[in-house]
């Protein structure tokens, strides 16, 4: 087979819902329609009214870039700028307005967001906001990111890898080499935790997953519906809690199936393995206290993949004192490493992946692969409203078409992969597999705060 570099083709898939302006300009009654605002605005926010050219039209807020020129120039001081209410209400928790609108932009263009001026946000924050990735210069090998000629690989292997190979006297390979699924991006898609989905969404995501050469986790019914179509080997049927393993019928062509971690998981796994010895088995486990022990047991029981679920904020699900994924995953990774079984199980981390930077950070903390969930919806302009109802959806998600959905999600994965490449390039790492568990190449808030400021007398909070 001819060598071909993996590449994600992106093209513009414009936003369809009405824009959510970051800033809203209001014009007071004392405006004298002098038109100075029109002349001062280089973005075209202010225009004369088409119906009555003596008057100014309402400002086009979506074009406003927060430059204050019109406010500065207005002789009547008739203009006021305020942060957009709708914008501020976008998203919640780690899904900040900024992240939601960033995902919209990435899904529209497929490009890395590049903006002027330095960082504008908080110094640090909870979860992944309290973590920085390392970079290389002078004393360490360095390499270009996306603009260089060198290829940086983002492919990962899913499955259990033997720790060593044994050969017989005749030179033949004695070790049983298990099944491995190679995917081209360390990102899989999971629709099973999302609500209110349409068949068009599932079709769009599934096509995107197939073309991106990654996996799509979906309910078995979705997989069987697609069976009449062409390829289904990118599907991972997820059998819900309470499924009797004996009744499972894995469609032909499916390479991996997923069961839930329940009290009977050992028997379930054993039975599944005897029924489908050539299908990889993933087991979905709810994160919480002791998840590291559960994953260790799964590795020992020869389950190939642990799919660890966190909530939408990236916090543990089953715990009185939930840890963030960055701490939980580090504990899991370290436990597996200490028992020398790390490569026998693949870890998929799911939940709270809300921005490109969350991917390298999750991998550094010990996951092999991350799962995209809510981001699949946000890519198609979901606003992550508290009360979700298809009838009153501001993005009219019920009517969006599969090819648009496919294009948007492909763009988003493309933009996220490019940003991952930039992070890898900055670290001087040439393949994403090497990023997993590279804790020495990350900077954690608690560590650096102590290192830098431990000799400085504290105020109220660090006593």
């Amino acid at each position, binding site marked *: 087979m001819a060598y071909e570099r993996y590449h994600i083709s992106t093209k513009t898939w414009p936003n369809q819902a009405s824009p959510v302006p970051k800033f809203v300009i209001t014009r007071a009654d004392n405006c004298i329609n002098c038109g100075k605002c029109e002349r001062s605005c280089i973005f075209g926010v202010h225009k004369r009214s088409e119906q009555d050219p003596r008057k100014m039209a309402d400002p086009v807020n979506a074009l406003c870039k927060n430059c204050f020129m019109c406010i500065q120039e207005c002789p009547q001081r008739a203009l006021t700028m305020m942060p957009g209410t709708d914008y501020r209400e976008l998203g919640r928790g780690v899904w900040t307005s900024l992240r939601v609108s960033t995902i919209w932009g990435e899904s529209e263009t497929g490009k890395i967001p590049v903006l002027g001026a330095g960082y504008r946000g908080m110094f640090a924050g909870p979860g992944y906001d309290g973590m920085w990735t390392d970079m290389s210069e002078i004393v360490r090998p360095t390499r270009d990111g996306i603009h260089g000629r060198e290829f940086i690989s983002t492919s990962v292997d899913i499955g259990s890898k033997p720790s060593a190979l044994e050969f017989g006297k005749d030179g033949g390979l004695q070790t049983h080499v298990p099944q491995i699924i190679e995917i081209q991006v360390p990102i899989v898609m999971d629709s099973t935790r999302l609500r209110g989905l349409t068949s068009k969404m599932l079709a769009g995501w599934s096509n995107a997953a197939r073309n991106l050469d990654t996996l799509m986790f979906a309910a078995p019914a979705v997989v069987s519906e697609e069976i009449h179509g062409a390829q289904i080997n990118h599907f991972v049927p997820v059998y819900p809690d309470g499924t009797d393993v004996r009744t499972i019928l894995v469609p032909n062509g499916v390479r991996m199936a997923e069961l839930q971690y329940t009290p009977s998981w050992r028997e379930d796994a054993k039975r599944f393995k005897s029924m489908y010895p050539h299908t990889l088995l993933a087991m979905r486990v709810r994160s919480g206290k002791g998840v590291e022990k559960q994953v260790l047991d799964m590795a020992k029981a020869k389950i190939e993949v642990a799919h660890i679920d966190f909530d939408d904020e990236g916090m543990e699900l089953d715990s009185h004192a939930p840890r963030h994924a960055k701490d939980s995953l580090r504990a899991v990774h370290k436990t597996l490493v200490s028992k020398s079984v790390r490569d026998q199980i693949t870890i998929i981390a799911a939940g709270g992946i809300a921005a490109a930077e969350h991917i390298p950070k999750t991998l550094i903390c010990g996951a092999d692969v991350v799962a995209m969930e809510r981001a699949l919806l946000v890519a198609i302009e979901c606003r992550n409203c508290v009360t979700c109802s298809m009838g009153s959806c501001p993005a009219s998600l019920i009517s969006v078409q599969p090819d648009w959905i496919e294009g948007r999600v492909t763009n988003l994965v493309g933009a996220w992969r490019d940003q991952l490449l930039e992070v890898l390039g900055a670290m001087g790492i040439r393949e994403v597999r090497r990023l997993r568990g590279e804790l020495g190449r990350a900077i954690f808030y608690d560590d650096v705060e102590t290192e*830098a400021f431990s000799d400085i*007398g*504290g105020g109220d909070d660090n006593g």
Partner: protein
Amino acid sequence: MTMAETPRACAKDLPEASGVPSEHLKFINRYTVARADACISCGLCASLCPYGVHRRIEGHAKILPPDDRKCIGPSCAVNYFFCVANCPTNSLSVSGSDTFISLGDPRWPSEMILATWHMAETGKPLPLEHPGNVGASGGGFDKLYFKMPGQDKFDPDTICTAIDLNRRGEGAKIRIPIPIYGGGMSFGSVSVPTMVSRARAAKEWGTFTCTGEGGYPEALIPYKDHVITQIATGLFGVREETIQRTRIVEFKYAQGAKPGLGGHLLHDKNTPEVARMREAVAYTSLFSPFPFHSVYSVEDHKKHLDWAHAINPSALLAVKVSTPNDVEMVSVGSYYAGAHIVHLDGGYGGTGAAPEIAKKNIAMPIEYAIPKVHKFLVKEGIREEVTLMASGGLRSALDVAKAIALGADGAIIGTADLVALACVRCGNCESGRGCPRGIATTDPVLDRLTQADWGAKRISNMYGAWRLQWCDLLTRLGMSDISELRGRTDLLRHGDNPTKEVGT
């Protein structure tokens, strides 16, 4: 230079502040005064308000709309002349301004932008307790406070704020009277008038500014003794003569806003003029490589410095690096390779264009890197031979002082210079026609909006105000020379509540 001959005379011949009136910059009002339709234009408010918020033009029946820029806010309620309480028709109200909260962000809150403008316009320092000295990002410099007694009188003529840029035993001695110089901003990322403003201010103050990586525009040649030539990975416009005409050559390995990534100049900013300077094709996006592909080790790095030294033996060598985990090794390596100035650029630094992911997530903030490098250089026994300069999110005179207390010798300023030029930090600098104030643009029409004379005065005023703030701080701390402050972490306090730290 005169400074070098008389090392303690840093208070001599410093530029005077000159007022730069700019009425149009006072568009931001903290409070909104609203007048309802019920107003009968009786004029009582106009006769009461001593600040001039309410006014009626002689002979007019109606009173003018309130000029809320002059309003002192709801705290005025304690005064007998409070307009809201006195209005017979209850048609006045005072509240916080929406426009005010639309300006700024946690790193550069609106108070800080206004404070910088104020200093740029007047050259007068703000009290160290003023909220505009500290950001609201909740960490780093914004969580570090000086343990200092309350305000005292100070005499700026007796306080030395100068630092040496060459602390090695050999080579040219360069002393700058304030502990800051200007960081690299390329032609392409900013306009020529912006660069000339900075260079002129640098000349007035006897300090430096830097070309950035976009070549050396001819308009800077009159200021060549105060312009650092930067050699960055793209090598744009780097020529023998640009290296030979400078007193400091800076090698830029990485930039804080995009550590591990090369410079970004998006296509529409690469106008024919910029392209000519960079010897590139106009209107193509220019991405500098990362890294220098000729430098993969300290030995390679030394070759680089030796090469610059061979071209211009009298120039000091500065090395600009970002802040990875092993930044202390990078710094030591740079020193042994022959650098005079080690310039650390922390993760939250400014930029004309950078991927958003790189601004927050790659490499550590400067607040962590300074003590790390300072302590390591002390341990290595070479601290007194290195000039350690910090940059990357240093916004105010107090940030600079905090960086020095953490262990730097001085600091490098970028964004603050632009805010002095009336930048509102709207952040559209990546786009060719995105800067309506002609600061970060190369558009031939827009770049006329900033005049170099005006800009130079404003930057110079800001430096002057900052110097007075340092004098104030040093006096309160019982010091007379800013070099005494270096590494004095014992004078800092790390905490959340600024009101408790101030004036105790």
